[in-house]
């Protein structure tokens, strides 16, 4: 059962543009939604995370928008840079530490110079 669906599968943007990646979830018990960034040959690294009691969280050029009623959340990367080229995964977790992360399928982002 695919509990977290992510789109698009791949995304190409120009330097300075806005990258938008979307995720939808099914389990309403999820209460923590992180985004991870993964470079080739590396493990995923936490980028930004949100809890469902807020609709938006911004950290630098990265913003999460959260729509609880639609069970959707998205990552916006402003002023995209070639160094942002990586694979991005949304994830969801139910409960505190010790709970597994359920990941989306990933989005391969390419930012052209």
């Amino acid at each position, binding site marked *: 059962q695919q509990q977290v669906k*992510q789109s698009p599968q791949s995304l190409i943007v120009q330097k300075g543009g806005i990258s938008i990646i979307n995720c939808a979830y099914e389990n309403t018990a999820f*209460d*923590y939604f*992180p985004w*991870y960034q993964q470079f080739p*040959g*590396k*493990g*995923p*690294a*936490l980028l930004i*995370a949100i*809890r469902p009691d807020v609709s938006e969280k911004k950290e630098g050029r990265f913003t999460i928008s959260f729509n609880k009623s639609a069970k959707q959340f998205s990552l916006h990367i402003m002023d995209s840079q070639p160094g942002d080229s990586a694979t991005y*995964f949304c*994830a969801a977790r139910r409960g*505190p*530490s*010790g709970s*597994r*992360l*359920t*990941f*989306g*399928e*990933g989005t391969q982002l390419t930012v052209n110079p």
Partner: protein
Amino acid sequence: GAGVSQSPRYKVAKRGQDVALRCDPISGHVSLFWYQQALGQGPEFLTYFQNEAQLDKSGLPSDRFFAERPEGSVSTLKIQRTQKEDSAVYLCASSLGYKRGGPRTDTQYFGPGTRLTVL
């Protein structure tokens, strides 16, 4: 920096061989997770330890997969009689662990993974 380390980074095994993958979590981290990442896919949960106790092994795909963390620090994921479908990157993650009254956002820090190829 003392991040999560994994060894070996690459492992090639012939079908039917046993393999052992090692994870060194961040010092002091109570929680340890193993995930399997197939090519072009997101990581999928395998198992979870809190200290030395394996509290969730529901993601292990078969009884050929076994994980341990005997002293509550280093963990080993063992795969017996490897099959071609076991080829994947195996990721280990650790986190501080939940403390009553503490923050509920407990970040999982991932290691670089071990890429297993079964021929």
